[in-house]
């Protein structure tokens, strides 16, 4: 029965009656309805908060784990760098120290030669004859004898002999001096050699000191990493992000290369594998081509690992050097075999393309057109180009191992960070949702009260009247007032609704 027909012929009254009945029902179930809303809201809000807290905890754990992973990766890198520095230093020291006996011998020889020369230069020239004493005794003769002709002649002879002797002595002396100078001059070469050797040794030591300084720096960094300082973490983070994007770009370029490679061998693969079969909607031949490229990349990865460029597979990395080299040779042999296969497929592709072109010309223009096209001279450059590409591309793809390793290591941390951020955002959203639900609960209750306002209003009137009346009539009736007040204060919903009424 429609509501407007509750009182026949009186639709307005029917609606009013219905509304009154509804408000009465709502009034009687008000408390329970509010309780139900509160309980439901509390249930949902508590669960949301729990979930939010769980996400927050997860994000914290993940953040710690990420930090550990980052530091671990950083330590590994630092270890590798240190290892490389040690190897360099060892080589340097080995190289220099092996030369040191020769250098030492050379220096000693030079010093001995110089000592010999100096010894030779230190020889004292022959002393002057004892002329001076004779001249001195003649000069002490008495003045009377000075004018004596014999003395004069004697002195003259002495003088001449003295001069002659002096000239001879001077000549000898000069000759000696010249000899010494020559010896000293020849010693200069030894000096130079000695200086050169010492400079060389100095330079080598300087280089060694530089390497040692570098190592000090590395060790300091390594210590920071071991201690897990914030500085080291920040440095690693920025370095990691940069490395990730660089690796991503290189991987993108490599994927284009792989795509070109795929197109080069996809068509001829249909000759080898049934092109009429499919797996998950893809031709088996196409999948075969993709598998060949993936195999090439895998073999390339193993090769790079075995020669120690990457460290993706600990099993290979920790092999004995001899076994590792055998493994490397096996990998490169397989890779070259695959390169050969690709070159062959590229050749087959060109043959197939020309066959298809011939068929098309035959279908379009008949036998004549086909034979005329066959008779036309054609260049071998595309064929050679395709075969070269087919051979080279797998070798180039082998180098994908380096950015791939970087991408794996850095991506792990970045992905972890992303997960942490997602957890945090979700946690915040869930908390917001909980708050929103609480507010919605309040709003629903208010709407409920607004719809059900007539009986609530009447209830207020009834509850308020005796209090006011009692205050006016008799001040001695306080216990009643107190009781009334207690009742009012005990019902918070009423206080809330009354305050809202006042506000309204």
């Amino acid at each position, binding site marked *: 029965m429609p509501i407007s027909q509750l009182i026949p012929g009186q639709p307005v009254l029917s609606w009013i009656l219905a509304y009154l009945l509804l408000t009465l029902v709502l009034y009687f179930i008000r408390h329970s309805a509010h309780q139900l809303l509160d309980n439901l809201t509390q249930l949902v809000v508590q669960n949301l908060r729990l979930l939010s807290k769980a996400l927050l905890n997860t994000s914290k754990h993940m953040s710690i784990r990420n930090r550990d992973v980052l530091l671990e990766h950083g330590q590994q890198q630092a270890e590798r760098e240190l290892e490389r520095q040690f190897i360099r230093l060892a080589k340097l020291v080995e190289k220099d120290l092996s030369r040191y006996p020769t250098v030492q011998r050379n220096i000693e020889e030079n010093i001995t030669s110089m000592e010999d020369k100096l010894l030779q230069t230190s020889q004292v020239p022959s002393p002057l004859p004892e002329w001076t004493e004779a001249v001195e005794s003649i000069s002490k003769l008495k003045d009377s004898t000075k004018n004596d002709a014999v003395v004069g002649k004697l002195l003259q002879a002495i003088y001449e002999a003295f001069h002659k002797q002096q000239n001879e002595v001077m000549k000898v002396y000069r000759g000696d001096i010249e000899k010494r100078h020559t010896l000293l001059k020849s010693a200069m070469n030894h000096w130079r050699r000695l200086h050169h050797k010492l400079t060389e040794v100095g330079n080598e030591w300087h280089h060694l000191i530089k390497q040692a300084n570098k190592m000090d720096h590395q060790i300091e960094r390594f210590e920071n990493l071991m201690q897990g300082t914030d500085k080291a973490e920040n440095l690693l983070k920025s370095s990691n992000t940069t490395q990730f994007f660089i690796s991503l770009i290189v991987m993108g370029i490599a994927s284009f290369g792989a795509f070109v490679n795929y197109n080069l061998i996809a*068509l001829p693969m*249909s*000759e080898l594998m*049934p*092109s*009429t*079969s*499919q*797996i*998950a909607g893809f*031709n*088996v031949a196409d999948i075969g081509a993709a598998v060949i490229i993936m195999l090439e990349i895998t073999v390339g990865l193993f090769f790079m690992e075995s020669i120690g460029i990457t460290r993706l597979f600990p099993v290979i990395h920790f092999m004995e050097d001899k076994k590792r080299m055998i493994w490397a040779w096996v990998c490169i042999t397989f890779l070259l075999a695959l390169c050969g296969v690709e070159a062959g497929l590229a050749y087959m592709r060109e043959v*197939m393309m020309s*066959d*298809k072109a011939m*068929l*098309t010309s*035959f*279908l*379009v223009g*008949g036998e004549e057109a086909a034979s005329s096209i066959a008779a036309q001279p054609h260049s071998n450059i595309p064929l050679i180009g395709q075969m070269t590409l087919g051979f080279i591309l797998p070798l180039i793809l082998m180098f994908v191992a380096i950015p791939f390793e970087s991408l794996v290591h850095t991506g792990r941390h970045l992905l972890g960070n992303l997960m942490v951020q997602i957890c945090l955002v979700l946690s915040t959203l869930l908390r917001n949702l909980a708050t929103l639900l609480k507010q919605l609960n309040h709003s629903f209750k208010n709407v409920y009260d607004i719809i059900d306002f007539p009986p609530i209003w009447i209830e207020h009137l009834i509850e308020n009247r005796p209090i006011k009346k009692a205050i006016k009539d008799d001040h001695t009736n306080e216990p009643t007032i107190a009781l009334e007040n207690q009742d009012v204060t005990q019902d918070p919903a009423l206080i809330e609704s009354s305050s809202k009424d006042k506000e309204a």
Partner: protein
Amino acid sequence: MARVYKVSLLVILSCLVLSGCTEKKPATGLYLLLDTSGTYTKELKKAQQIIHYYLANLGPGDSFAVARIDSGSFSEKDIVAKVTFDHRPSQANEQKRIFAQAIAHFIETIKSSAYTDINGGLLQASEYLDETSASRKIVMIFSDLKEELPKGYNRNFDLTLSGYEVIALNVTKLNSDNRDPQQYMKRLDYWQNRIETSGAQWRVVNDLEREKALAL
């Protein structure tokens, strides 16, 4: 050793799963009926071009047959050339060459037939295409769709061409159609009704220059 066994088992299982997942590529089966009655044989040069077009477009695994419509077309003898292309493209190309040569020879040596048994041809087409187990079955009728049966031939049966596509190509207008176009319309309606009743889709392509309309 146990680990090696486990890995081997996993590899074998993966291979089995992969081989189990292998499915046949959806192939196309095309059956072209050529009307060889009366003056329509002059139109067969166009049909040859269309055959070449489809030869160029069909790939490994697809089936293609060309048959003539003559006085009694429900016969294997009326199949001019038929082929299911090899999965190797080089072999498929060779098959296409041989097929094209067979068609060229047929068109050069064709003789007009007195009657036109289109229903018989359709029946033969459905029989052939059902055998190929192609996922897409197409019958093309290169004809003016004017059926004329010899005395004693009964073609009053229901065709079962569910899942088929039937395409009428180059439905030329006869002199009588020019006088009374209603006849042409009625003829088209009759065939459309008959084909659609049999469960197939019906389409008419008169402009053979339109590649889009001819595309499979």
